[in-house]
């Protein structure tokens, strides 16, 4: 096969969000050449093994594979002649129809009498005149399909159908036949456009969408499907960044005692040096999230982010409150973040947040665990429904722990509007930031990690 076909497939995969290096692409081709193209399953497996390196990417691969190798009839169709185009219909009624000889008819007949292979050729020619690289969003596909059909000369057929519809019964029957034929051709054209979109549009659109996703407020993020992947990727990037930093700070002091003891074996020559072990990292993060309706979107992403980073942030305890307050660490340990967030919202959601009561409850539960290695992060809008603020409890907490951070999903200008009482809490927070988009969130977690190590 057609190395070209395979490299188009790799292109399509890249469009679907997989990161495939040229070397991997070559591997994929070698593997495909080795197993042959007869067994579809084996061909599929060989490509999967060489091109998909992460289980998260598998669904995208499966989808692309199915779509890509279904458009032309199957993997085995190395020969381009094996076309899915409909059989010619135009020559059927030339003689016995009164309308024959009409100028419009001849144009339409020109197209409808072509064999599938010729039609394929025509489609390819028409497509070659168009510039598909400008496609950016999926909804443009319809437009491009129509344009492609027009370029093929389908306009004449449309006119012919309209004309036949006006006529007698046999004419209408023939119109029906032509319509069916047109549907099939259109499907082929649409398939072609879809493939072109995968090649050119999807990748570009994705970069654009990613940029948007990072900047829009959390509550609009639901409209994007890929946001989960993006969050995971951002978290992974941050995690690997800080992992290295953690390792760097590990090196350091020579352990003189152990080096001396070990050197006795070698007649006092310190043949091997021993280094003092890095003390176990004790920092602990406690997150308290407001999950009432106004803030729950931000909470969802903050928690997803934090738990996606358990490589570098092993000791996270999380709490949530809306009308009730409860620990939710267990949910996140047992379930994937999406599921866990859903469960927590089911259990605790409601309105009527009472920050004062929440602080008191948190103090009761965790007083003993608060120490100078603990960072407490509070995510909330500080809208207290005019209840007692409980700022003195927050002060108590602050005295016990290393630092208290406050993340507010609202803009700074609204921090004290209405029933919000941020200014009562601010004096007790080492840091208070707006946390309204993924970009904000990334920056916050980054500085959190920097502070911890």
């Amino acid at each position, binding site marked *: 096969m057609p190395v070209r076909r395979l490299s188009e497939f790799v292109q399509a995969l890249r469009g679907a969000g997989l*990161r495939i*290096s040229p*070397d*991997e692409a070559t*591997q994929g081709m*070698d*593997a495909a050449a*080795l*197993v042959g193209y007869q067994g579809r*399953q*084996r061909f599929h*497996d*060989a490509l*999967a*093994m*060489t091109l*998909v*390196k*992460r*289980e998260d990417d*598998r669904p995208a691969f499966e989808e692309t594979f199915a779509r890509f190798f279904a458009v032309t009839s199957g993997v085995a169709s190395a020969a381009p002649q094996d076309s899915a185009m409909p059989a010619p219909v135009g020559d059927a009624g030339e003689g016995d129809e009164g309308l024959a000889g009409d100028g419009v008819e001849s144009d339409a007949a020109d197209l409808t009498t072509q064999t599938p292979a010729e039609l394929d050729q025509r489609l390819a020619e028409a497509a070659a005149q168009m510039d598909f690289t400008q496609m950016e969003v999926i909804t443009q596909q319809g437009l491009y399909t129509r344009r492609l059909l027009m370029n093929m000369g389908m306009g004449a057929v449309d006119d012919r159908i309209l004309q036949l519809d006006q006529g007698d019964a046999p004419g209408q029957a023939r119109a029906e036949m032509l319509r069916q034929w047109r549907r099939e051709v259109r499907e082929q054209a649409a398939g072609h456009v879809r493939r072109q979109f995968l090649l050119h549009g999807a990748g570009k659109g994705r970069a654009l969408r990613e940029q948007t996703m990072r900047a829009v407020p959390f509550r609009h993020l639901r409209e994007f499907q890929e946001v989960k992947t993006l969050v995971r990727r951002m978290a*992974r990037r941050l*995690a*690997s960044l800080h*992992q*290295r930093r953690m*390792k760097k700070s590990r090196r350091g002091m020579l352990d003189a005692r152990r080096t001396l003891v070990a050197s006795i*074996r*070698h*007649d006092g*020559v310190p*043949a*091997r040096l021993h280094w003092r072990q890095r003390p176990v990292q004790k920092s602990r993060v406690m997150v308290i999230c407001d999950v009432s309706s106004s803030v729950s979107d931000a909470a969802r992403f903050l928690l997803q982010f934090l738990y996606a980073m358990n*490589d570098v942030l092993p000791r996270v305890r999380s709490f949530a409150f809306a009308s009730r307050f409860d620990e939710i660490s267990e949910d996140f340990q*047992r379930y994937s973040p999406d599921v866990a967030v859903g469960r927590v919202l089911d259990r605790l959601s409601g309105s009527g947040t009472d920050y004062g009561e929440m602080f008191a409850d948190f103090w009761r539960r965790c007083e003993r665990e608060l120490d100078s290695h603990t960072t407490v992060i509070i995510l909330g809008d500080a809208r207290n429904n005019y209840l007692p603020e409980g700022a003195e409890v927050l002060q108590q907490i602050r005295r016990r722990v290393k630092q208290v951070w406050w993340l507010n999903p609202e803009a700074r200008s609204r921090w004290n509007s209405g029933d919000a009482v941020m200014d009562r809490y601010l004096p007790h927070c080492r840091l208070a930031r707006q946390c309204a988009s993924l970009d904000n969130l990334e920056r916050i977690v980054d500085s959190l990690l920097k502070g911890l190590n």
Partner: protein
Amino acid sequence: MKTRIDSVEDIIRSFSEQGYICSERIALAVYLAAQLHKPVLVEGPPGVGKTELAKAAAAFLEAPLIRLQCYEGLDESRALYEWKYGKQLLYTQLLRDKLGGMLADTDSLEASMDRLGDLGEAFYSETFLEPRPLLHALRSEEPAVLLIDEIDKADQEFEAFLLELLSDFQISIPELGTVKARHQPLVLLTSNDQRELSDALKRRCLHLYIPYPEAELEVQIVAARVPDLDARLREQLVAFIQYLREQDMKKLPAISETLDWARALVLLHADSLEQEQVADTLNLVLKTEQDVTLARELLPAWLRKLGKR
């Protein structure tokens, strides 16, 4: 080592003769790895036979298996090579007089240095080199199967260190220069996904994910490994394990646990999954108290449902 592998079927057949029943995908991975000379990164939940795969592959290829178990803090001196410091010191001690004699007739410091220099790299030669698994694999007289087990447990630096080995089958040792593999080994890396591996590593490897087996395959595995178990009980047992995997367990039972349980049931002369026996031996399958309790609660209903069918 076998140099010719005829087909994927060949591998499946040989594996099953050894009692390693595998899906076609697994065999295909071994086939591609051997033909394309690429390492394979094997991922999957614990206990699905990742390490066993390396053993089976070694037996199939009639090659020695060299195993490197990774752990946190693993470094080059444990994985690749080390100088035998003790031996070096001992030699210098023993040879002290000899060296003294050799240097006796030199009159200046420079001359002594020159003469010592003439000794060449005597103290950093093969004699004092302690090869570790990776170097063994590279210098092995016949092509070997190299298993780098649980790579996710090693540090990231170690991963980076492996890259040269994985892409070019060579490794640079400062004192000796670059060591190239005499024969390219078949490299298998396993990972439990404890930590995300770097893209650079993944890029150099074929990727194989081994999931928990389908019921049909698992029945075959049990049949091959515990042939004494009654066929009907085998089906029951596998069906129950498969059912457990769908439950909300802390640690899901893997193939190795299925096999342990099957063996226990053979010892107990069980002929069906009767309640007491199952309940008593459940701790072979499930490793936390919570899970065992949950499974105990689920079991009666499951058995009833089975009875009805």
